């Protein structure tokens, strides 16, 4: 059977720890998976199609003559291929996923049950309004609760993810400024911002000015005030910020921004820390996107795409993108054209109405938690991050003193003089069975390690994580006392299907297209160390 050719691939044995290589190159039940194109067995086919009746070509001699390049594969080959690939994946369903700034929380299965109800799952966005009243009501209910949670009068649901929400918010701000005949050219962004903030501002035609952080890891209010002026269109701020800290001068910040005639945009990526506790409108925020796929579950790898609704203040609401849902005489109706009451809309940002599947999941999450439950989500998320902060304070180096919000930021002072870098430390964590935290972001601290446990994790899970982090930190510290060396860390991860990926090679010489291997010679001048593993530079080890 063709699967034998798979097991006895010509790939060389992986460099297993202790130099133990296997004959097949597989390790345990971790299979060295070839690409489907490399598994090509000509003549194999997963479907049995009837012979077509005789026909004459009508393509005037333009018909394809060569093979179309699809691999021959049986159904079990394909099923096994994708099953094996899925087993190499890591997801929130597999374990702790402490990526700071990503809010990788558990996605309740109830969400999935709701999203699969045929009344939702089998809808088509072009169905007549009269046949989708329930779906429109769901979207309207979600919008209602987002307005309640933010305290804002309007919400635009169509943006497909956080950065798309930013685009929507800044376009609405631009439209509002133009509507009052106010041309402004600059947007202010703190140093610690998500990269999407300046990217969005730039995409909307603004020049960006960076606001430095103060020694407390927050926006330097004096520096902000010095940069504000009649040419500033908006400030884009994340609160809590990417250092996991609450911007405690936000009321003064908002007042200063408004005095300058500018708008206050808030990146709501970290809304999980304050949902149910703080209404952003009361902080003076004019526009705020909410990552449904963070705060309201359905995270990356936990099911489905992103969704980034934007809550808007009254002055921005008339510019909200289409479609709008309105209550008409015959129930819910969609406003899809920028005329009449929607004449000032920025228009359509996305095909159809947004990520309907995410709307269902987010509303299911909200309704199953209730107001008290959502409040507890924020409280537990903050409690968990602070638990880690306190438990690790003497082993790692906390970047900023004091209580943090939903994520805790460490810098690499604890690795000083050990020869171990943040990257090495994170890679060693993989060998211990943990997905690493966010590294080297935010850029405002040296060698950042940003941990966001979310409310999902139990105390037992956190204690286990703390134990491993403390153990690794101790091992790094012992290097300074002459016990062991940094080689242990530099060699990590040792137990993964691939070791360190050559990110530099992948960026400098990207291989973007699969090509069949040349039949005769193996190896290349580029990667002599890796002669057999060949072809993709991203598969070779980073360090020589």
């Amino acid at each position: 059977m063709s699967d034998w050719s798979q097991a006895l691939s010509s790939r060389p044995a992986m460099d297993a720890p202790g130099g133990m290589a296997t004959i097949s190159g597989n390790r345990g039940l971790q299979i060295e998976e070839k690409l489907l194109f490399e598994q090509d067995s000509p003549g194999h086919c997963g479907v049995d199609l009837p012979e077509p009746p005789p026909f004459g070509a009508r393509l005037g001699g333009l018909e394809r003559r060569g093979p179309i390049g699809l691999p021959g594969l049986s159904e079990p080959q394909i099923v096994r291929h994708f099953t094996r690939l899925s087993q190499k994946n890591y997801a929130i369903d597999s374990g702790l996923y402490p990526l700071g700034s990503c809010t990788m929380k558990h996605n309740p299965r109830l969400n999935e049950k709701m999203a699969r109800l045929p009344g939702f799952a089998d809808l088509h966005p072009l169905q007549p309004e009269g046949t989708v009243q329930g779906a429109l009501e769901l979207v309207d209910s979600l919008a209602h609760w987002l307005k309640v949670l933010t305290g804002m009068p309007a919400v635009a649901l169509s943006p497909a993810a956080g950065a798309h929400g930013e685009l929507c918010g800044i376009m609405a701000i631009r439209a509002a400024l133009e509507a009052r005949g106010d041309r402004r050219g600059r947007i202010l962004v703190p140093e610690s911002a998500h990269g999407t903030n300046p990217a969005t501002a730039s995409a909307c035609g603004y020049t960006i000015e960076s606001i430095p952080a103060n020694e407390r890891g927050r926006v330097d209010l004096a520096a902000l005030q010095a940069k504000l002026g009649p040419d500033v269109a908006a400030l884009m701020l994340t609160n809590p910020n990417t250092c996991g800290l609450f911007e405690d001068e936000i009321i003064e910040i908002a007042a200063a921004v408004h005095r300058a005639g500018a708008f206050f945009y808030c990146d709501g990526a970290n809304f999980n820390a304050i949902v149910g506790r703080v209404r952003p409108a009361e902080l003076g925020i004019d526009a705020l996107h909410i990552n449904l796929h963070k705060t309201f579950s359905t995270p990356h790898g936990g099911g489905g795409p992103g969704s980034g609704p934007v809550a808007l203040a009254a002055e921005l609401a008339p510019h909200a993108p289409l479609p709008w849902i309105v209550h008409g005489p015959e129930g819910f109706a969609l406003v899809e054209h920028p005329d009449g009451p929607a004449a000032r809309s920025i228009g359509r940002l996305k095909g159809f109405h947004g990520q309907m599947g995410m709307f269902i999941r987010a509303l299911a999450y909200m309704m199953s938690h209730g107001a008290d439950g959502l409040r507890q989500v924020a409280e537990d998320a903050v409690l968990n991050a602070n638990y880690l902060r306190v438990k690790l304070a003497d082993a790692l180096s906390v970047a900023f003193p004091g209580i943090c919000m939903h994520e805790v930021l460490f810098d690499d002072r604890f690795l000083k003089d050990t020869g171990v870098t943040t990257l090495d430390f994170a890679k060693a964590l993989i060998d211990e069975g943990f997905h690493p935290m966010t590294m080297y972001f935010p850029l405002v601290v040296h060698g950042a390690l940003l941990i966001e446990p979310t409310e999902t994790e139990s105390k037992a899970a956190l204690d286990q994580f703390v134990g491993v982090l403390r153990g690794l930190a101790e091992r790094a510290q012992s290097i300074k006392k002459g016990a062991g060396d940094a080689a242990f860390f530099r060699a990590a991860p040792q137990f993964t299907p691939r070791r360190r990926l050559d990110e530099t090679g992948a960026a400098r010489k990207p291989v973007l297209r699969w090509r069949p291997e040349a039949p005769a010679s193996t190896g290349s001048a580029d990667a002599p160390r890796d002669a057999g593993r060949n072809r993709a530079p991203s598969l070779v080890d980073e360090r020589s």
Partner: protein
Amino acid sequence: MNTTRFTRDHEWVRPEGDVAVIGITDYAQSQLGDVVYVELPEIGRTVEQGKEAAVVESAKAASEVYAPVSGEIVAVNDAIVGDPAKVNADAMGEGWFIKIRLANPTELDAMMDEAAYQEFVAEQH
């Protein structure tokens, strides 16, 4: 005498007559890690001190390179666009970024000399 001057943003400036050669420091390249992409300005563009003049990107981060002095861009180092590894290999020499015709040579006076810069770097970490 070494006339090279340094900024707090880790750029270096080496005056050569009325033109200054500009690059990022060896410390900057070591902090960035392997440089994978460089974007340089157009020749003839006028830049202002402290404003963005180029972009440098590594596997770890993307950063702006600020113009340490004001003036007109008179040359750019296309070699580092084709082979960004040059920035890592020789940041202070072959890995230079741009040359600016100095609009205001006194801008150099406020910058750090090598000894002061080394001291500044030592405080960074």
